[in-house]
């Protein structure tokens, strides 16, 4: 797997901290300059990647279901910053952003979207079904809520081995109403499994607003009857996400069992590419974009602290643009899978 384009978030924490000293006076106890710049770059990469995916979908190069992560970038990026190497990540079908922050090659992700042999599943999975054992990314699941039980199983393996890893299971406000979520909560707490449940509450389960579907809309309280601590987090603020994720991970790693984070967020696009999103007003979407955009938030901080001028940000923009253009080009030119792939990977020999 080509590693040339792994994200800045893959840098070790030490590298990031070393940059802080050079950064000078601003922002006590907050993120360092290098950290903020890395968040900016990683979130921007997701956004530009998703915009390009939307474009390729419009051109007919991507088929079927395609769920974009635009608006929710701070969550995957903030959690990744709190993860340790070896920690597993698992999510549902809105998974492109998670794969990019885990360090999967943007080329392979985009080529999987176009169903080509260069895709991470060699074209046999598609947008909703990508995995990487190398990046400890376990999918990419199309059945709403399934990743919560599976992620709890990853945590069971961690506890069984006593290896100190934490499993991070992401799901939305829609999946939060699935029964298996609560079956998993129960077992995770009874067995004190190291798992952080990350709810990405973007307020709409496909077209159904949360207050129309949920008797308790404060989803971080959904662990109360299982004695699982939960907190609400501003999911549009990447540093808030990271700080909360660190608290949650600490809880898990000290043997206290599962932890619940409700990330308040918003998706700018429809549920999937074929959703015109008529269930909400344009004013509502515009308001979030204008006042809560996670990327502009970091941009503002960088400017406020004097940590990056326009030229520096433009350089990052150009680099991201190049990566995305390269991924799109690869995804358009990578050949379709050979017919002989039809019957491979149904069973494995070893």
């Amino acid at each position, binding site marked *: 797997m080509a590693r040339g384009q792994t994200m800045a978030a893959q840098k070790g924490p030490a590298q990031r901290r070393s940059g802080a000293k050079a950064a000078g006076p601003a922002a006590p106890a907050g993120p360092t300059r290098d950290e903020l710049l890395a968040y900016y770059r990683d979130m921007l990469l997701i*956004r530009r990647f998703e*915009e390009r995916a*939307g*474009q*390729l*979908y*419009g*051109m*007919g190069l991507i*088929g079927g279901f395609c769920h974009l992560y*635009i608006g929710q970038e701070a969550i995957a990026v903030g959690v990744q910053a709190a993860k340790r190497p070896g920690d*597993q990540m698992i999510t549902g079908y809105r998974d492109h952003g998670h794969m990019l922050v885990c360090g999967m090659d943007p080329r392979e992700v985009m080529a999987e979207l176009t169903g080509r042999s260069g*895709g991470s*599943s*060699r*074209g*046999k*999975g598609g947008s909703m*079904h990508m*995995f990487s*054992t190398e990046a400890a990314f376990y*999918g*990419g699941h199309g*059945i709403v809520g*399934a990743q*919560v*039980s*599976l*992620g*709890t*199983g*990853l*945590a*069971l*393996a961690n506890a*069984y081995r006593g290896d100190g890893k934490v499993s991070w299971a992401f799901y939305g406000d829609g999946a939060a109403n699935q*029964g298996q979520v609560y*079956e998993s909560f*129960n*077992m995770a707490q009874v067995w004190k499994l190291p798992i952080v449940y990350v709810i990405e509450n973007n307020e709409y389960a496909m077209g159904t607003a949360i207050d129309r579907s949920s008797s308790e809309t404060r989803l971080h309280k959904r662990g109360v009857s299982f004695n699982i601590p939960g907190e609400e987090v501003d999911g549009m603020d990447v540093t808030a996400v990271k700080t909360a994720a660190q608290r949650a991970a600490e809880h898990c790693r000290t043997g206290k069992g599962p932890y619940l984070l409700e990330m308040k967020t918003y998706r*700018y696009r*429809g549920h999937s*590419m*074929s959703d*015109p999103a008529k269930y909400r007003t344009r004013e509502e979407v515009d308001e979030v974009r204008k006042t809560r955009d996670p990327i502009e938030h970091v941009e503002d901080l960088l400017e406020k602290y004097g940590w990056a001028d326009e030229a520096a940000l433009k350089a990052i923009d150009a680099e991201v643009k190049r990566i995305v253009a390269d991924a799109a*080009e690869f995804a*358009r030119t990578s*050949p*379709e899978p*050979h*017919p*002989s792939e*039809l*019957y*491979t990977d*149904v*069973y*494995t*020999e*070893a």
Partner: protein
Amino acid sequence: MTDILMPALSPTMEEGTLAKWHVKVGDKVSSGDVIAEIETDKATMEVEAVDEGVIEALLVAEGTEEVKVNSVIARLAGEGGAAQASAPKPEPLPEPQAADPNPQPASRAEARGDPVRAAAAPPTAPAVALRDPELPEGVSLVKVAVRDALRDAMAEEMRRDPDVFLMGEEVAQYQGAYKVSRGLLDEFGPRRVIDTPITEHGFAGLGVGAAMAGLKPIVEFMTFNFAMQAIDHIINSAAKTLYMSGGQIKTSIVFRGPNGAAARVGAQHSQDYGAWYAHVPGLKVVAPYDSADAKGLMKAAIRDPNPVVFLEHEMLYGQEFDVPEGIDWVVPIGKAKVRREGTGVTLVAYSRMVGFCLQAAEKLAEEGIDAEVIDLRTLRPMDTETIVNSVKKTNRLVTVEEGWGPMGVGAYICAKVVEDAFDYLDAPPARICQEDVPLPYAANLELLSMPSVEKIVAAAKAVSYR
């Protein structure tokens, strides 16, 4: 310069209406800006800019209908010029390779114009002939109940591999609802013999997740009736993930428990799921009859790197059969066993119905019909070769299963025999199944509903025109 193309709202959209422009010539746009609205009879959607630049030309007027997908609707002048060079242009999708008009015939299948099959023939038969292990000299056979053979298999594999563990309802402290896991908690402790809450959907998912992480779980369902709550994880998560991940994620896991009808427990607790799971690519499905197969196949299932559905039978748990003692007894998955050789009629069955067929064969022998009894042992991959070879000898076929007939195991066997041994059949095959009703509770109706030795004898005689 960058072309902006008419996008598709859905995979099936071919054209639409350009309802509104939100920009005009000379406007500066950047990624994410809404530049237009398009409509079809089903939906309206905003078009966002992907590239940055200045609108140079709007090529399609507002309100234009029947604008073809991928036609150029506007043109963008790059902000800095050169950076825009890599912008995508409409390109036809490459032709699928399967439709190559000039294939090089490399095999008979390809020469018949079936390139997909030729390139990727499904593995219908194992390359190496599967055989039960030879019994070394001096190995003695001991009588063991099926439940204990299953327990011994699990215990031996747990001693052999620290990644193997058992989870399920009442498997630990209670020693198993049917006592199959008796003694395992004492030997292996609560870390490896895990009592779960009554939560099939959840613990099946946990088991699959642990398997994805490289462990080798044995997930016990108290009965397979309750596994319907968990069938999504068995099929969608366990069976399909290897394929969907391009071979990256393996799930070595055994789902086991009693299957089929016990006695007088009513419709919801009496069902044979053989056909259900055997339908699914990615799963292996095993359904043994005697103790030696129960042990040898369980050991093979635990070692198998694929998900295995292991169908046991409550009515067989207490029956004793010979098991080789003191050796590592592993029976290959995917190989049927001829339990009784004969030349008059082929009886094919699995699990408890094998015993019914053996009894029927004795009765038929009294009437001068020499029946051959095939124990499938594995439903997927099915050893149809053994069945077809038998039918070529006997020219008559009766299938026996506890499941319902429509779309069932017998239906599949009949189809395979018609495909592979049509000319050898001297009579239409017969199927004995559970009657096509939910299993009744009343003793007499239950008996009427289930396959029986008498029904098998009658069917064998019918296909023998006797």
